[in-house]
């Protein structure tokens, strides 16, 4: 969908800004908000660019940097921490060769941390894009990543 079409879905009122930003980001194959996106939102809602930038950087679900095809968000809340999420993060970083907040050079994976995903019954847990993965072990992580690499 084109940027203009997304904007037109919403009335130009400030209360719609989060919806618009979500929608623009979801439509971007690199899962991020570009400078042009923010400028378009500012024009559409008739607010300064700095305002839109301020909102977009306040919320952790928005990224102003291009991200990979698969965004891995590992839950680091106390419930997952107790069940061993640090091992999972360590394993992922080793496997992908990237640190937290970075994207692999082939543009496939971005590794992020997330606050509670609300699936604590299967801790430690993570999300890859919209999908939830739980009861994670280093072994399971290797399988999931391999699978995703094959799917590309």
């Amino acid at each position, binding site marked *: 969908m084109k940027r203009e079409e997304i904007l037109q879905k919403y009335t130009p*009122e*400030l*209360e*719609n*800004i*989060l*919806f618009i*930003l*979500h929608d623009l980001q979801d439509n971007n194959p690199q899962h991020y908000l570009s400078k042009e996106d923010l400028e378009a939102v500012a024009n559409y*809602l008739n607010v300064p660019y700095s305002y839109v930038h*301020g*909102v977009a950087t*306040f*919320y*952790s*679900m*928005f990224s102003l940097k291009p991200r990979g095809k698969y965004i891995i968000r590992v839950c*680091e*809340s*106390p*419930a997952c*921490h*107790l*069940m061993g999420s*640090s091992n999972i993060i360590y394993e992922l970083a080793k496997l992908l060769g990237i640190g937290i907040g970075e994207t692999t050079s082939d543009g496939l994976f971005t590794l992020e941390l*997330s*606050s*509670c*995903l*609300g*699936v*604590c*019954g*299967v*801790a430690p847990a993570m*999300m890859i894009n*919209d*999908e*939830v*993965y*739980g*009861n994670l072990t280093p072994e399971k992580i290797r399988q999931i990543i391999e699978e995703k690499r094959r799917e590309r």
Partner: protein
Amino acid sequence: MKLQRAHVLVSVDPETVMAGAKEVEERLIKEIESRGLSDEIKVLETGTLGISGKGVVLVVYPEGIYYENVKPDDVPKIVEEHLLKGRPVKELMLPELPVRAVKRETVGLTRKQVRIVLENAGVIDPENIEEYIAVGGYEALEKALTSMKPEEVIEEVKKSGLRGRGGAGFPTGLKWEFTRKAEGDIKYVICNADEGEPGTFKDRLILEGDPHKLLEGMMLCAYAIGARKGYIYIRGEYALSIKRMQKAIDDAYKYGLLGEDILGTGFSFDIEIKKGAGAYVCGEETALIESLEGKRGQPRFKPPYPVTHGLWQKPTVVNNVETLANVPSIIKNGAEWYKKFGTEKSTGTKVYTILGHVKYPGLIEVEMGTPLREIIFSYGGGIKNGKKFKAALVGGAAGVFLPDRLLDVKMDFDNLKEYKAVLGSGAILVMNEDACMVDMLFSIIRFFYHESCGKCTPCRIGTRELLELIKKVRKGEGEESDLDKMIKISESMWKSSFCPLGQSLIMPVKSAIENFREEFVKHLDKEFHCENCRR
């Protein structure tokens, strides 16, 4: 509802979908069709059944038999043996029925679990408004609109003793009354579904399992305070909740339960969903209002409170999901009925999530005043793998670490206060003897450091200082005075932070260090080895 011989309920939530619930459901429908049983047996999607970590869970009614870890290939056997021949498949049944897996007909009678908020979750199809109506849904709305004045609705809620389930425990009826009496023609109802407290997912289960109950609660509130418009602010990560809630809203419009002149009574009300974008602080009501208005979600100065100056400076009620989900039952059955549950000052039930090293992680709804020990050991099944209990973190990240000697605390607003603890979001994280308190406190402080919104100095700087200190202790470079410094910093934050985020860090910090000081002191020794802290 059509009359059927049997119902098969498939629990569909993020956890079971991950385990293949959709494939199992498809296969079930196919198998039932191919055996010509489609008219007799109905397959329903439902919210969670409250059983966690057991893969795809099914329950077959009228027998109330639970199957766990069901794979698509198990389906033919279940259909053939159980549904056709009436012989339950033993090897797939839950070996021990956790207390929370109560049969429908015993709910509310056994007092094992008293279900008010979750009475329909896992029992009806949340995407079907007719099923909600069939179990008595929207009766409270009809009763209120046709036979009660708005003031009478408020009076009933006040009499019921219902207190906010978001954490602070403010009397709900009083909040409604303030808003009704506030000056102005335009008023709003906001449902706070920005559930971000670590270890908490009770609101998600209400949103996914019984969305109409929440809508009905909001409608009753709107009628009582004189609002025409309501918003549900749902956190951005809850994709399924947003989808189910939207479906429920659309259906309510179709049935004339939302919109203009509802049930021909002249009462009009609209509800809209707003989606969050990942900010813990937006769970604070004024930050949530700012976010809803399209701003950075930073808290406002109070007073004035939202009851007089809320959304767009209009009088506004902000209520938690669980609070609103209590209201339909109160109006339908009356305050006297509701007061039978719980304690004198904390009436009704509370939904808890039990997590960590327990046998049965998941959620339960029990009466206010139920002892913590009973929740952990009866409902949670105690500690798994024969390990010993060490501590429970009660109330989420902004909660309190309780050791064994304090487990007999009765869980309600006032009793917990005596232990300097809070009910909070109802999250109970249980730790066994292998857990390290230093490491757990590190995880909590790191969370607060990340989520501090930066508006006020005590919280912004305080979380940073605390993080540095706990890292030092964790690495074996700390001194005894660092422990006291941590308590002192969190005390200053409690006294001087702008909103509850900074004010509440004192609870985990103080309770961890005071109740488990020995363990903290051990970590000060450079030679000490700790698996969890990686040293």
